[in-house]
């Protein structure tokens, strides 16, 4: 069989056109804009080098950053300086973009920046305040001058705004110096009295910035899916271009790929084939739901053409809106609660889950489920210690359940003295603290002590509650502690553990679990709800009569949002069942592996069907789509695993992960043309877009560099507070996989429509 030369050429030029659309166009930039772009790329590469070389070669002097776990966290001075420069550049890019955009964006940008600097304490106090405010005022003056220049030029009839591009460098340079000056003034004002306060404030600001960056990182994850789709599409089309035996070659390649995919998944699940079966069962339900979405957006009808690519705006809206809604719903009330007076503080907002210690020694407690459980010591004839650790989840709380064998401790006093002395010993977690018993009360069968501590200089005071009792000849001690500043928040968690203690294992579900869905459950429900609402709104919009140009984009966006919602639902059926019915019977969700298996089985079934009907020649277009999907999913899975593999055993941010992410941003920059950097409009002209975009890139890189370089004494890496890799992985799965599925669905829909229109299968399928 043969494929026409026209089809070959179409396929090839289609790929080239797609690439040309997406790649950032340096050629069409003027000189200042090229310089701005080059500067950003240069700093990106410099940051990658700093990350790669930070643990090698001569080490620069280290700077104290903050204290955690009674240990001083430090950072290399060159990295701190580079981080400040990157952050200042990030602000300069963002503000330059805002200053050169619509006046509303200009005002919003400047207002937000001013507020952020003041709120985070970077506007110095005392004698330095005037200088700080002068710097901030200077930024406003630069913005005002740029605006006046713009007005003047327009009055002279220069409405095309190209004159502003000349101002880009001037504004950027001025704002960079002023923003950097703000950090310099803050440092100088604190250098004498509390230098560590500067690094703490800087850390807090970067942390706040990182929260805002999360949706953008999700979108960066989608870029990998975009890369996968583009690459696999190119490969599939290249095979289809072969003049001789093209269809057979394609059929064989896709068949082998599908067979390998299915075979690999079966091999991976060989000891848990039931789980794979459940994934496939969930996939069937998901396919039905996708079919519903396809029907709703009228994919199979000929009245509407779908855009070949998912509009970038749809991806951004889904990432930003769903995250923002979730974040506002989840974190703002928690922040408000934390800032209320102590007597008004709400209880720790968490689902309680039981811990059963079952063996020769039995007992049970309920604890906040996000506190990790660890049996530190288990000696039924000696001491048993079980730890409940909120630290790894970001909650500064730690609780220990300690018991000694009957007779080991004659009194509760001896036991609590032993414990507290040991904890505050030079090797204990409370080293540097002098704990004492501030007061005691009776709490049911327990005697509860308020434990305070006097810290050594430079350490934050710790506070806790310690419960003691004798039961069956055994001393029992439950000790929950945290930093004094976090005590009010965590104390209800400690109390919940103590009050739930019983000397036997419990069989009933956690009392609170049934009634309290918990923060994570609510976040799940809110995120899913917001995605479903966005999808429904887009579907309704797509079904309305619209212009042919916008209609395709909206319809594809609606299909994409629908697929995102369906894959989200399919991933968490167990949680949804629990939310709906309270049942804790776990259901296996649909994961990337399940989707790959389904795609592989579908490809094999299609090939089998075509072979049975001896019509392999007519299967080219669906085969290209299936091959693209299979290869795209596999590339995405590899990149996902690359990220996971690049983390070290403790899940911390490794050098490799940092480099991969920086490379990802280089790819992101290269492919930003169609969506951001090649276009422009009245609200945000091209030079403003480019500045805003590089501002985002610089802020992310500053965060990566800074948080991945923090060290404990001895060189141990501090657990990453900015898990940029996790969010990118989340973007790959939550948005990237649906993107591949959407592109596949659009390709199949187009083939179906063209096939119906032609009346017969034809070689035009290749162009699908």
């Amino acid at each position, binding site marked *: 069989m043969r494929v026409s030369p026209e089809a070959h050429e179409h396929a090839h030029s289609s790929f080239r056109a797609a690439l040309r659309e997406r790649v950032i166009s340096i050629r069409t930039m003027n000189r200042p804009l090229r310089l701005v772009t080059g500067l950003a790329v240069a700093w990106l590469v410099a940051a990658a080098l700093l990350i790669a070389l930070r643990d090698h070669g001569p080490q620069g002097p280290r700077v104290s950053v*903050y*204290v*955690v*776990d*009674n*240990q001083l966290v430090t950072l290399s001075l060159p990295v701190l300086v580079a981080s400040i420069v990157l952050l200042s550049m990030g602000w300069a890019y963002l503000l330059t973009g805002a200053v050169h955009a619509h006046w509303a964006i200009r005002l919003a940008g400047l207002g937000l920046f001013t507020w952020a600097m003041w709120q985070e304490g970077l506007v110095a106090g005392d004698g330095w305040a005037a200088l700080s405010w002068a710097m901030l005022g200077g930024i406003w003056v630069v913005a005002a001058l740029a605006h006046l220049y713009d007005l003047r030029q327009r009055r002279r009839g220069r409405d095309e705004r190209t004159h502003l591009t000349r101002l880009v460098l001037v504004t950027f340079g001025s704002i960079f110096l002023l923003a950097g000056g703000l950090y310099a003034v803050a440092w100088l004002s604190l250098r004498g*009295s509390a230098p*560590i*306060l500067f690094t703490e404030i800087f850390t*807090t600001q970067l942390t706040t910035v990182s929260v805002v960056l999360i949706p953008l990182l999700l979108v960066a994850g989608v870029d990998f899916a975009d890369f996968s789709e583009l690459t696999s599409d190119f490969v599939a089309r290249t095979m289809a271009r072969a003049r001789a035996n093209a269809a057979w070659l394609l059929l064989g390649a896709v068949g082998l790929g599908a067979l390998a995919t299915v075979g690999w998944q079966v091999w991976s699940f060989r000891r848990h084939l039931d789980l794979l079966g459940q994934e496939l069962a969930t996939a069937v339900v998901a396919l039905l739901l996708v079919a519903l979405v396809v029907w709703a957006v009228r994919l199979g009808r000929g009245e509407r053409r779908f855009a070949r690519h998912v509009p970038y705006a749809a991806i951004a809206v889904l990432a930003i809106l769903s995250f923002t809604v979730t974040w506002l719903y989840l974190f703002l009330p928690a922040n408000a609660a934390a800032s209320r007076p102590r007597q008004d503080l709400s209880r720790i907002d968490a689902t309680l889950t039981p811990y059963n210690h079952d063996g020769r020694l039995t007992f049970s407690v309920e604890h906040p489920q996000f506190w990790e459980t*660890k049996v*530190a*010591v288990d*000696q039924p004839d*000696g*001491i048993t*210690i079980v*730890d409940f*650790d909120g*630290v790894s989840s*970001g909650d*500064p709380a*730690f609780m*220990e359940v*300690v018991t000694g064998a009957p007779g080991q*401790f004659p009194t509760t*006093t*001896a*036991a*609590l*003295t*032993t*414990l507290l*002395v*040991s*904890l*505050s*010993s*030079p*090797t*204990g*977690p409370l080293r540097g603290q*002098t*704990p*004492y*018993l*501030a*007061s*005691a009360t009776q709490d049911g069968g327990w005697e509860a*002590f*308020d434990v*305070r501590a*006097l810290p050594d200089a*430079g*350490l*934050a005071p710790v506070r806790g509650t310690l419960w003691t009792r004798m039961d069956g000849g055994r001393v029992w001690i439950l000790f929950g502690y*945290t*930093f004094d*500043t976090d005590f009010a928040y965590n104390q209800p968690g400690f109390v919940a553990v103590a009050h739930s203690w019983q000397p036997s294992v419990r069989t009933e579900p956690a009392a609170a679990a049934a009634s309290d869905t918990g923060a994570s459950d609510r976040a799940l429900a809110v995120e899913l709800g917001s995605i479903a609402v966005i999808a429904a709104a887009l579907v309704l919009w797509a079904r309305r009569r619209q212009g042919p140009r916008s209609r395709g984009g909206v319809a594809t966006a609606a299909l994409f949002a629908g697929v995102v919602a369906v894959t989200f639902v399919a991933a968490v059926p167990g949680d949804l069942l629990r939310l709906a019915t309270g049942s804790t019977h776990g259901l296996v969700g649909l994961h990337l592996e399940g989707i790959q298996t389904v795609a592989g089985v579908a490809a094999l079934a299609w090939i089998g069907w075509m072979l049975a009907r001896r019509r392999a020649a007519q299967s080219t277009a669906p085969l290209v789509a299936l091959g693209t999907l299979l290869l795209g999913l596999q590339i995405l899975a590899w990149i996902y695993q690359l990220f996971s593999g690049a983390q070290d055993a403790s899940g911390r941010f490794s050098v490799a992960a940092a480099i991969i992410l920086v490379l990802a941003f280089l790819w992101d920059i290269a492919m930003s043309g169609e969506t951001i950097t090649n276009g422009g409009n009245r609200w945000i002209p091209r030079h403003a877009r480019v500045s805003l975009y590089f501002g985002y890139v610089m802020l992310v890189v500053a965060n990566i560099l800074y948080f991945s370089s923090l060290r404990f004494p001895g060189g141990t890496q501090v657990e990453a*507070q900015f898990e940029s890799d996790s969010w990118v992985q989340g973007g790959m799965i939550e948005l990237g996989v649906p993107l591949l599925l959407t592109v596949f669905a659009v390709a199949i829909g187009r083939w179906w429509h063209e096939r119906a229109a032609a009346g017969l299968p034809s070689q035009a399928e290749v162009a699908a």
Partner: protein
Amino acid sequence: MSAARRARLLAAAGVAGACVLAGCGSSSPPPVSTPSPVAAPTLPPGSDTYPAVDTPIGQAPAAMAATWRQYGVTLIPGHSTVDPSAQWPRTIDASGGALTAAEVAAAGAAVMRTQVVATWADENRQIALEPHLMNAPFLLGTSGVALAEGTSVHTPPCGEYPTDIKVHAPSASARDALVKAGQNIGSTAIPVEMGFAGPCTVTGTTRDGRTVTVDTLPAGRIVAMVELRDDPVLGSIARLDAATSCGDPAVAGICSGA
């Protein structure tokens, strides 16, 4: 040091060793902190921070009250409590020339000031003051629990005032041995040998007015590892890092005068 603290120390030292072997004191830590410096309008540096007699903080001059409020007290000890008295024992120079006579005298006075302030704090339930004077093992035990329960702990003179004080030269070997046993001892600590008469009964008055026995202490000699400090509020004190009986091999060389 008070006799009650001697007993607490010995008990704590024993169980601390056991606990280290059993793995008490998980290495898992509490996490991120944001320490913030605290500043308050207080007496100028170098001022006399003590009133003439014990004074409730609400009745003290504003700057003095602010100074002591940082230490969490409700009652301020007066000169009548902390100043040297006839009961203070003589200090003997056992440093072998490592310390000057003035240093030895200052160390003895600091030890006794710490001793009387700590005993006064026990008596008046000023628990928050005590961590400034000594390490955790001395703050816990039966006296620590009694104080937390609101009991006023009375240490009789046999427990408060040693019969003699000998100031020794710093001993790295003794310090190392005690640190290995899990004690927190500063690098500048010096050993101070003290003798106590006994047996000595430490009693308490509970919140409901009952008199209880808190502890009974035998007579004996101990070595305390103290750090001399010029505390901005308490003045010259000897912060008590650790102590052990003269029978402890770690300090046997010191007690024997070797």
